[in-house]
């Protein structure tokens, strides 16, 4: 008896959409095992992790608040991943967006007007784009690996933010804490539902998802991105420019990540602090894959990933378990979805050990 993994005649349509669900199921199984190993009743722990955080209107609004930056980053990454462009520096682009948008808010203190928030949005988008433009330039001009350059720039961005809030932008009346002044009210994104933290940045995320869907499914450039990603030779034969796809991917994903950063500092946080994201830019990589590199999928996956963050907090509050568990589940989820995806194109066959089964035609 031997186990063999063989190509399917045709990719499985069912699994294409089913594999994220399988991955989620496997993650729940793993979570059950982990909770039991930690000496907690797994049923209660699962309820606390997956259900309790969203059992109220406030919980649902928090879900949207956390899903917004994830969706913004992931929709941009999706465009790149489709074209085989690996921007893994969304966290850095998010940070630059926060710095630029927040910088406008700090500079405008005392001169507010209705123009302020639009200006902050533009500054944040441009900041994220500029940070994304660096790996794009280095890739197209010098052939430098964009995975490494975009990631290195993330570390640079985080140090830059640290420098600003420890140095020139530190609140003079902040008891020496490394943080900027609080933004004025007019520099904060309006809250949509009274009594929650649901801010207008969530609408930006929804617009981005719709725009991403149109770009990927309904435009010629979306088609070109797909061809460049899946069939580079066909793409160059057809005259589609790989460099253009690299630039487009980085500018769009950088700009959207920048908006995500603004949504954090002008939303729930309200000032610049040394840490503005619990790794949204990295978690967005998982969201993009889990969402099948598709706009609608990304929306659903960002909600699920947001739930993992909320679940971690809920475990800490209710069962005194560390919220770091979220990171473990995130990593598992990506492993499981990558593994499950294999069976879209392959199937498992159990063969008698003596003879090789004939290949089916």
């Amino acid at each position, binding site marked *: 008896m031997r186990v063999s993994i063989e*190509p399917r005649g045709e990719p499985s349509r069912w699994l294409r959409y089913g594999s994220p669900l399988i991955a989620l199921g496997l993650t729940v199984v793993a979570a059950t095992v982990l909770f039991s190993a930690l000496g907690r009743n797994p049923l209660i722990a699962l309820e606390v992790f997956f259900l309790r955080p969203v059992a109220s209107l406030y919980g649902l609004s928090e879900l949207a608040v956390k899903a917004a930056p994830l969706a913004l980053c992931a929709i941009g990454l999706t465009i790149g991943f489709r074209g085989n462009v690996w921007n893994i520096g969304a966290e850095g682009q998010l940070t630059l967006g926060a710095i630029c948008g927040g910088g406008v808010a700090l500079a405008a203190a005392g001169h507010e007007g209705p123009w302020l928030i639009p200006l902050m949005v533009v500054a944040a988008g441009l900041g994220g784009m500029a940070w994304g433009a660096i790996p794009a330039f280095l890739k197209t001009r010098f052939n*430098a690996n964009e995975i490494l350059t975009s*990631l290195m720039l993330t*570390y640079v961005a985080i140090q830059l933010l640290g420098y600003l809030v420890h140095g020139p932008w530190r609140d003079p009346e902040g008891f020496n804490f490394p943080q900027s002044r609080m933004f004025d009210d007019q520099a904060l994104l309006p809250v949509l539902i009274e009594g929650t933290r649901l801010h207008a940045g969530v609408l930006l995320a929804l617009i981005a998802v719709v725009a991403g869907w149109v770009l990927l499914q309904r435009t010629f450039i979306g088609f070109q991105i797909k061809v460049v990603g899946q069939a580079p030779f066909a793409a160059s034969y057809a005259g589609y420019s790989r460099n253009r796809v690299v630039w487009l991917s980085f500018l769009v994903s950088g700009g959207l990540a920048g908006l995500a950063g603004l949504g954090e500092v002008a939303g729930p946080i309200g000032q610049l602090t040394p840490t503005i994201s619990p790794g949204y830019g990295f978690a967005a990589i998982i969201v993009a894959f889990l969402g099948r590199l598709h706009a609608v999928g990304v929306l659903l996956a960002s909600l699920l990933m947001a739930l993992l963050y909320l679940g971690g907090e809920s475990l800490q509050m209710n069962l005194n378990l560390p919220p*770091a568990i979220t990171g473990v589940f995130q*990593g*598992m989820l*990506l492993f499981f979805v*990558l593994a499950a995806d294999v069976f879209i194109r*392959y199937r498992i066959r159990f063969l008698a050990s003596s003879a090789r089964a004939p290949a089916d035609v």
Partner: protein
Amino acid sequence: MSDYDTLIAILYATVRAGTPLVFAALGELVTEKAGVLNLGIEGMMLIGAVTGFAVTVVTGSPALGVLAAAVAGALASLLHGFLTLTLRTNQVATGLALTLFGTGLSAFVGLAYIGTPIRAMQAVAVPGLADLPLLGPALFRHYPLVYLSWALFAAVSVFLYRTRAGLILRAVGESPGAAHAIGYPVVGIRYLAVMFGGATSGLGGAYLSLAYTPQWAENMTAGRGWIALALVVFATWRPARVLLGAYLFGAITIIGLHVEARGIEIPSHLLAMLPYLATIVVLVVISRDATQIRLHAPGSLGKPFHPDD
């Protein structure tokens, strides 16, 4: 401090700071020579760091800690191996998954050890050599793990270019189809190469948590796994250049301290950017010469191979 003493201090600190990169990059070099790109180094280093620390705390033996870190790194790399080699998943995505998973898992496991003090690993002077002028204090009064990294360098260099097994491993990386046709177990050899890379990443992590800064802190590798990946490209897949590159980065990491010691004030956050900026610069310098990369990169790097396909 005289200039002579300063020079010794800089050389000593350079080797100290470069050592985790030597471990991680030499392992990744072997993995890539077999044709597998593992972007999970950062995750495997973190798993190694936390495992080494935990085992040292529990058993009181740093040697056991180091051993456990290597085993943990190898086990973590098996995740990458199983997915990319057996299931044929995308190597880039799988490596990213390993880094994300390793970051999360190490943070979770390490919670119990934040702030736990351990006795730092003791430096050992090599008898005889330690008394040489300049070289003695700079090179031969280090932690045992530093000497282990040199032994590893020698072993990898000899293995890859002076042994039959090394030749087979390189053949698997250059042309897996041909290696398979002659009858070599391509997938099995790649598994071993991946596990070797995992084990050395684990050692690099243990060096950080047991010797370099003897404590556990979340994300304490601070991107060294990614710098190690860049180093392999920078070295155009040659061991001696990996060693040189690792110490170059070690020097860049510590240069800030010496600038500060001279009374020149630069904010620490800006100095901390240096290794990352330097990584970008060297990548650009090396990558602009596409022929160099093509000549030296393993032919099948990052491409899946399976005998049934």
